[in-house]
Each structure stands twice: as C-alpha cells, then as structure tokens.
C-alpha cells in the first residue's frame, strides 16, 4: 500500500471539525426535526400507546362505568372468567369460521377475477370499475342494504325467490344460514379489495417470464402455479393479512343485520366486546375480551408470516 493511499485513508476516518458557522464544543441540535416529529409522536402517544396501556390496566380491574364506583383491582380474574365463559368460546368459534371462509373465498374469487382481467378485453375498464364499487360503500350502509334486501316478507331477494317458485328463506333469521349470509355479504364487499391488489401485482409480472414459460411448453395452469404464485407471494401475503386483520374485527354488518343472533349464531368477538362494553358497560370485562382478541389476531398473523418467511428461506 502506498504512502499516499495510507494518508488518504487516514484522512477519510479523521473526525470532521466544526462546520463553518457552528460554535466549537456544542453538539449539533436538530430541534427542528424533533419539533416536526412532535405532533406525530404526540398523536401516537395519545391515541395509540396510552389507550393500549390503559385498556390493559382496566382489564385487570372490575369496573362498570355506570355505577359511579372506582375501578377495583382484581388481577387476572376477568381473563379467568372469560376463559370459562361459554359465550366467549362461541364468539371465538364464530369469528374463526367467519374469518377463514370469508378470506379464503375472497382470495379465490379475487385471484380468478384478476386472471380474467390480466389481459385487456373490450369493456374491461368499465367492468373493473363496477367490480370495485362495493368496496367504496360504507360497511354500515352495506349492512342496512343487506337487511332490507334479505327481509323475508318485503325484501327484494325473497320476492325474486318467490317469483321463480322458491320458498321464502330467512337468510338472517335462521341459525344455519345467518353466518354464511354474513360471510357472503363480506365476500361481496371485500373481494374487490383483494382483486385490486392481485391485479396490480399480476400486471407487474414481466412479460418475458410468461413468454419463456410458454416457449418451454408450459400450460396456463402450470404458468399460474409455478410462475404467478411464487412471484405474487408478497402481494398475496399483504392482501390476505390486511383482510385477515379486518375480518377479525367484523362488527358493522353484524350490528346492522343480526345483532349477534339468531340465538348466538353470529355473535363475533367484536360484537361481544361491544355488547359487554357498551350495553352492560362492564368496561373491564370488555377490555379483557379485547386483549384476547388482539392475542388471537397476533397469533394468526404471526403464524402466517413465519410460514411465509420460512418458505422463502428454504
């Protein structure tokens, strides 16, 4: 190594002196940067961190807000009561069934639709816009629409069924049909969301990959299985995760259609949390419920992420 190179290297690691205009001995202060971050941090602390910690604390107490009494510390009693509560386990079952079927069906439909729209065809833009429309409607409005449409006597769906000679069906009033009906409503509204993500990702696949596969004699199913799916792995993961998280929180359509019934057939965890927290105002029990829902969501999401990442490492 030449001397000149050594000198050059040394110079490169020599700490810089004070910049012109900065007084020596003072550390650079980036007050402006912190100041700009402050509102965001304050927002995060006020609306995310503090409520989260507060709800954890509340879940360890006994507190019914309307009594006017102060919360009383009871340790893990709320969690123990919940785990022995038949209604809690029913709500877990209902939620898991809802999430699994809704997200699975949405994914399959969205993937199929994305394949259909992958190549341009006449009128595809108009159809694409129409497909996306349900996603733009507020879930509360969707619930209301569903309630009126599926109403047994005057609802349009039953009127159509009767018109073609089929019997009146209690979509929301039958214990066997209520949950599948809610799943169908969710699928109708949120398939477009996954469709949008998958279509965007599919259109980003290089044409050369497809052409090369075709030249190798691969059929379309093989191209989809061996090329599309691996290349779409991360968009699929993001889309499915977002839908999973959202589905676990399903509340709006339950509130607007079945209110947890008939009996407890559609009593999801979020509905139960609302019922316990805002009807009977046992806030501490509702807080414990929320924490168990959070743990369940984290478990599922974490498992999914691990599986996907372990697949990548291999």
């Amino acid at each position: 190594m030449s001397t000149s190179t050594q000198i050059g290297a040394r110079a490169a690691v020599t700490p810089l002196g004070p910049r012109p205009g900065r007084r020596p001995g003072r550390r650079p202060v980036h007050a402006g940067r912190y100041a700009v971050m402050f509102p965001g941090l304050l927002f995060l602390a006020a609306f995310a961190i503090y409520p989260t910690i507060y709800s954890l604390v509340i879940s360890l107490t006994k507190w019914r807000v309307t009594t006017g009494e102060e919360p009383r510390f009871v340790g893990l009693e709320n969690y123990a009561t919940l785990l022995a509560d038949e209604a809690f386990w029913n709500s877990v079952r209902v939620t898991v069934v809802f999430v699994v079927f809704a997200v699975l069906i949405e994914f399959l439909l969205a993937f199929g639709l994305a394949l259909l729209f992958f190549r341009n065809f006449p009128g595809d833009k108009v159809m694409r816009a129409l497909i996306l429309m349900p996603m733009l409607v507020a879930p509360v409005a969707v619930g209301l629409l569903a309630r009126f449409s599926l109403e047994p006597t005057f609802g349009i769906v039953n009127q159509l069924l009767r018109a073609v000679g089929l019997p009146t069906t209690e979509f929301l009033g039958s214990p066997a049909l209520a949950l599948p009906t809610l799943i169908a409503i969710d699928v109708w509204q949120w398939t477009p969301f996954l469709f949008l993500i998958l279509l965007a990702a599919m259109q980003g696949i290089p044409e050369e990959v497809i052409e090369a596969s075709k030249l190798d004699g691969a059929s379309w199913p093989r191209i989809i299985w061996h090329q599309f799916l691996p290349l779409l792995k991360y968009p699929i993961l993001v889309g499915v995760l977002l839908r999973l998280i959202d589905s676990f929180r399903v509340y709006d359509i339950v509130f607007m259609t079945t209110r947890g019934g008939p009996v407890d057939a559609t009593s999801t965890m979020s509905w139960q949390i609302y019922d316990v927290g805002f009807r009977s105002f046992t806030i501490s029990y509702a807080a414990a419920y929320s924490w168990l829902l959070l743990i369940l969501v984290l478990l599922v999401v974490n498992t999914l992420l691990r599986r996907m990442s372990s697949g990548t490492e291999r």
Partner: protein
Amino acid sequence: MISFEGRGRRLTGVAVAALATTALLGGCAAGAPQAEGDDTTLNAIFLPAAWGTVVKEQLAPQYEAETGVKVNVELIARDAIHEKMATLFAGQDSSYDIFNLDYNWIPEFGQGGHLVPLDDVVEDPSDFLPLSLEVATWGDQLLGIPQTVHPAVLWYNSALYNDPETQAAYQEKTGDALTVPATMDEWFEQVKFFDGREFNGQTLSGWAAQAAKGFGNVHTWLSFAFSYDCQPFDADFTESTLSSPECIEATQRWADMMQYMPAGANELTYDNVTAAAQQGTIATAIQWSWGQFATDDPATSQTVGQWEIAPMPAGPGGTSAGHLAAWVISVSKYSTKVDEAKKFAAWLETKENDVFQAKNGAGDPVRISSYEADELLSETLPDTDVPRFRRLATTLEAMQSAQPRPRFAGEEIWETTLSTELSAISLGERSVEEGLKRADEAQNRNLSD
C-alpha cells in the same frame, strides 16, 4: 431535504409543530357541542322518534322565543343515547344538560348518582299518570319528567273482525261469535283461524309482534309474562325466577304463537310489524298503543282507519297486563346549567305542551287531563268521521294494569341474556324449560357479581 438547522428555521419548525399540535388537539373537540359559556344555551339529546322531532323542530324554538334560552337538540338513536350517557357520565362531562331516557335506564343512572332530582319543578304532579311517575323515580326521587307512555296493547283489524263472511266462517269453525279476544285462549284460537286466510286480496298471518333478538323479543314476551302472572325476579332482585310455572306457561304460549307470525318472525322489528299492519297482511298484533297512528297515514297505509286497539288478552289468572314503554326527560348532574335545564324539562311537560306533543304525533300523553282534551278527542281523520285519537280511552285503561320492565340497575344486561334464550326457544333450538333455566343461571351469575 428540508433543513431547520438555522436558528430562524428552527423557530419556524417549532412554530409549525405547535400549530399542527394545536390543530390536532382542536380537532379532538370537534364532536362536542359548541359551548357558548352562558346560561342561555342548553344542549340536549333526544330520541329521533316523533317526540324528539317535535322538541327539536317546534318546542325548543318556541321556548327560545319565550325565554331567550336556546336549546340545541341532537337526535340520536336509542342505543347511542345509552352509550353516550354512560361515557359522558363516567367522565363527568358537562357537554350535555338534558337527556331523553328510556325509563329502564333510570335505576342504572340513578344508582350511579348521575341524574338531578326534578321533584321541585314538576307542575301539578297529581295530573300525571301514576305509573309514568313511578318508573321515572329511583330512591324516592323523581329523576325524569315523563314525556310519553305507550303500553303494549292488542291491535286488531276491525275491518276483518266486522267482515260478515269472516264472522260466519269463524262461527262455523269454532261455534263462537268472532269478537275482540278478552283472553289469551280466545286470542290463540282466533290467531290459528286467521292464519293463512285470504282477506282483501292478502294472505293473512295470525298476528305479529317484535321478535328480533336484542330487545324486541323480550318486550313482546313481557306482555305474555305479565298477563300470565309471571314475575322474572323475586321482590328484592336477588334471584331470577324465570323457571316458575307461570313463566314457563307464559313462554310456552308465546313460543306456540310464534308459529303463526309472518315469515321471518324471528327478525321482526317494531317497524316490520307496523308495515305489516299498514299492508293488511296480519290480523292482530301486539304493539305499542301510540304506534297505531302510523296505520292511519294514507301515504303509507292501505288500512287507514281500520286498526283498533284493546287491552292485552287476559291470562289464565284473569290478569291483563301489557308491558309498559315510556320515555322521560332527565337532567345531568354534571350540567353547569342545572336550573335552566330543569326549567326547560318541566316546561316541555306542562299540560298545554303534553297535548301539543300528542297532537303532533309525539307519543301518548302522560297527563291524565290530556286524555280528556277536546283538542285531541274532537279531531277526525281527513275525509272521515273516524276519530284520530280513538286509541286514547283504551290506552288509559291499559295504563291501569300495565307493568314496567324489571326496575333494577342491571336491566339492560338482563334483556340481553334473556333475549338470547328467547331467540333459541322460538327457533326450536332449546325447550322452554331449558332456555329459561339457562337464562336463570346466567342472570343469577350477573346478580352475584
């Protein structure tokens, strides 16, 4: 890249951040009513039913014109009022001064000490229906001024009951004359007879009533329960007594009769029942007395002037007792304008305003004198001689025997618990005995908490 390292820029950065923070926190208060900081503005929440609309659109502006006190009225759905009150009271929030309450919340908020006693502002309390005052009282204090009452009563289509062909068919089938049923057994016979019959081009269902899970099925069930002498609790609310023979008999009759409701019975809400009455697709119903006015609206009803009301058919012990619905006006303990709020609440229910509200479709009156008011009794439906307020005499009669929901602080939880079991019973998922036993067990757990 933006840099704020210069002193001036640092200051600019801090100022921008401060402004942003202020805007952020300012936005947090966006949902709260505008505080005008004086005694001349009150903030109130009412139900978006006719009695809330009348207050918002007519009485509050009139009160402002007379007194200079402005009343901002927000109309909010029932469950949302309950939620809002509980959360505001928990925070001792003074944003709202006056609330419209379903009377079953009086024990809950009264026990918590969140409501102001109103005994001293009620004008001529002896003129109020005694039951309307009773349900607004907790701990010997009047915590709400009654605004409207509506006991559950039997609705029947008089055109159907007066139809000679129907009368003859009933006589032939049962050997009895077709008259308005006085007992549960008579009514059940008639419901079975009417169900599936054709009348005025419609296929009839025997009856309809609120039956949806939540509170609807409990409200209908209560009228059966009370008429069968079933009391859901012991006298001091220490034990749930839903498995008593009277409650089992009442529930069995209710469940049996559910078979004769329109399709989708388990989803029926108050509005669905009213719509069915307007369409003429039901023969009878259990509904609130006040709601009958909707069947007289030619814009929406095909049965104008046809629906009449009668007291609940009596159970085997001879008791006829409909379940009482009522709404009251209360003042928040955390209001900074309690005196003004009390004056307004009392003014809403002067004799004159009680009649005014009834005349404008805002529920049935709470004052006895209103039931004799010429202004109401002389009015007829347009182009007919059918009295518009023909229901008042029966309502007053029904109020003599009507019974309120169980009056204790955990009533809302009780309704939720019982509603789930009633839903299971009516759908055949559980037997009457099993459902009531489960409701008993769940409620006793709640009571022991």
